[in-house]
């Protein structure tokens, strides 16, 4: 099996951390680099967090690069968990690792153009605002043909919003960039709130991260405990979603998910800027431009995430009676 050549475009972020560690723990993925964008937290804190995660997982030569420090057009909006800031040193240890001097946008564009020249394509795992990817697509016409697919955590359709009543954060933070990327013609798979709300992580999962006493699993459990995402009123049961990891999980195990083809779009201006819509019933007559995931095998997803991250850098065997997800 050929491995996915992946760049993770991210604004870490606690659930971004889960996505990054899941990718690092997965042999199906050849991680080319981490391109960082301002989003959940500011660019500087996001970069520190990305470096901390790379060091924690032993990926000391992985390119970590700074991208856009603000959205294309609109004023910056931070995430609901902006107070996370830099991951505290007692949760994720400090590191000397620093970002590469090059720009993340140029990195994405160059990797894509190289891939296009070889007749291949890279996969972009987009788990923050799409500013970097929109700029990379505009930089050279040959960038789009070198992107095999974009797998994005973002948007909200039937689930409605969370950052505002009508918008999911990654779209809300840079609707113009989302508009550019969604209309680019690059194959797009979306993991909207509709599906990320279906898998809730509780203390049982946090303990599962720690089952093999690995540094990555321990840090992940501590981060999720420190920044509680549960909302029993909204979800009707205990536990909180780990949004971003689902984009990586879909790449690893698409059979855990169900999705539909749809035309999707973004409102870029007016009072409901950041609203995302999907035409599931062919009302607009527009051709589908996205594969929109609408259901997940919750237990399978939680197990994939916890077991892979628990095993990352761990020396202790998996507990009796539980197999490592292959």
């Amino acid at each position: 099996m050929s491995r996915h050549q992946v760049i993770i475009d991210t604004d870490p972020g606690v659930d971004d951390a889960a996505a990054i560690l899941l990718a690092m723990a997965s042999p199906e993925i050849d991680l080319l680099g981490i391109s960082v964008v301002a989003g959940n937290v500011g660019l500087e804190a996001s970069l520190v967090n990305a470096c901390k995660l790379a060091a924690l997982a032993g990926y000391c030569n992985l390119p970590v690069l700074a991208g856009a420090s603000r959205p294309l057009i609109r004023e910056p909006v931070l995430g609901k968990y902006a107070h996370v800031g830099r991951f505290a040193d007692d949760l994720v240890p400090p590191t000397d690792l620093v970002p590469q001097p090059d720009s993340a946008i140029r990195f994405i564009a160059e990797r894509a153009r190289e891939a296009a020249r070889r007749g291949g394509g890279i996969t972009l795992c987009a788990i923050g605002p799409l500013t970097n990817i929109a700029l990379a697509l505009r930089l050279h016409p040959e960038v789009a043909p070198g992107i095999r697919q974009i797998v994005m955590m973002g948007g909200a359709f039937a689930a409605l919003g969370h950052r505002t009543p009508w918008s999911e954060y990654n779209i809300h933070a840079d609707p113009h960039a989302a508009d550019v990327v969604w209309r680019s013609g690059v194959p797009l798979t979306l993991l909207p709130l509709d599906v990320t709300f279906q898998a809730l992580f509780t203390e049982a999962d946090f303990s599962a991260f720690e089952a093999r006493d690995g540094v990555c699993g321990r840090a992940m459990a501590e981060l999720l405990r420190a920044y509680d995402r549960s909302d029993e009123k909204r979800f009707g049961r205990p536990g909180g979603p780990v949004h971003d990891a689902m984009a990586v999980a879909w790449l690893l195990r698409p059979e855990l998910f169900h999705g539909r083809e749809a035309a999707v779009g973004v409102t870029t201006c007016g009072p409901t800027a950041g609203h995302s819509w999907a035409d599931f019933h062919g009302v607009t007559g527009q051709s589908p431009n996205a594969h929109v995931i609408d259901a997940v095998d919750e237990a399978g997803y939680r197990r994939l995430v916890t077991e892979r991250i628990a095993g990352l850098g761990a020396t202790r065997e998996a507990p009796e009676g539980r197999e490592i997800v292959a």
Partner: protein
Amino acid sequence: MTATQIIIDCDPGIDDAIALLAAFVSPEFDILAITAVSGNQPVEQTVRNALQICELGGRADIPVYTGSHRPLVREAIRGQFHGNTGLGNTCLPAPIAEPEENGAVEYLVDRLGEARRTGELVTLCCLGPMTNLAMALCIDPKIADGIKRIVMMGGAYREPGNRTMTTEYNMLTDPHAAHVVFSSGIPIVALPLDATHQVILTPDHVKKFEAASGRISASVADLMAFWDRNQVERYGSRGGPLHDPLVIAWLLAPRLFKTKRARIFIEHESELCMGQTVADWYGSSGLAPNAEIVTQVDAAGVIDLFLDRFSRYNPDIAA
């Protein structure tokens, strides 16, 4: 006097070509590069045109970079008065030189970053949609500190638009890019239609340029003849407005221009008024001015200035 370091960002375009030819023979400038952008023509064509004009003007030494292939957010629209190639009916040999390997946006990021570090600031002449500069500012906002000022052609204030009722072509093509640039805090000199419609290049002027321009006179005459709008009720005479060359004229002879400081806003949300430039002449917004807007031009002075410059292509006069 040390020469002003300039980068010319443009989408040639007939009036861009006239601006470039005037700049080439002006020792007041050290032209670092030409960065071409999608605008009047697709970027492949504006790059080709820039290379051809450099070779026509004997300035193949100036590097030409390929810029963004389409506007930041909106679909591309093309110029209406530049003919099929962007250079009217002018017949020029295929360019010998190639554009630089690196892209224009990367070049702007690198070169303006260098200017910021050395403190030798660069002046940007923006003759087309502002996509390249906006992208460079998105990639590295710190490069704003490497720019001495932007002298741009675009917008329409008291004058109506030339592409829609409200909007000038460069602003309509990429209003989002203009919004990014006008929000950047970089000092800006704006040459809107209000200014450029004061300088009409009439058929009589064209004859004078043809007589003056020495070895490039045939090409100059072809370029300028094609520029005649033949719309007397709008412009007051035959001929076409000398849009982009006014950027070069302002840098060479600011005494020929009157300006007024104002805050400029770019409409980028309303389809009806998309790209409209709105100036806060009287401080209604409470925000500080971000530009000097040219309100009056000494048209005869500008024509004389350019006639003098174009005569430098005549070896008899130059010698």
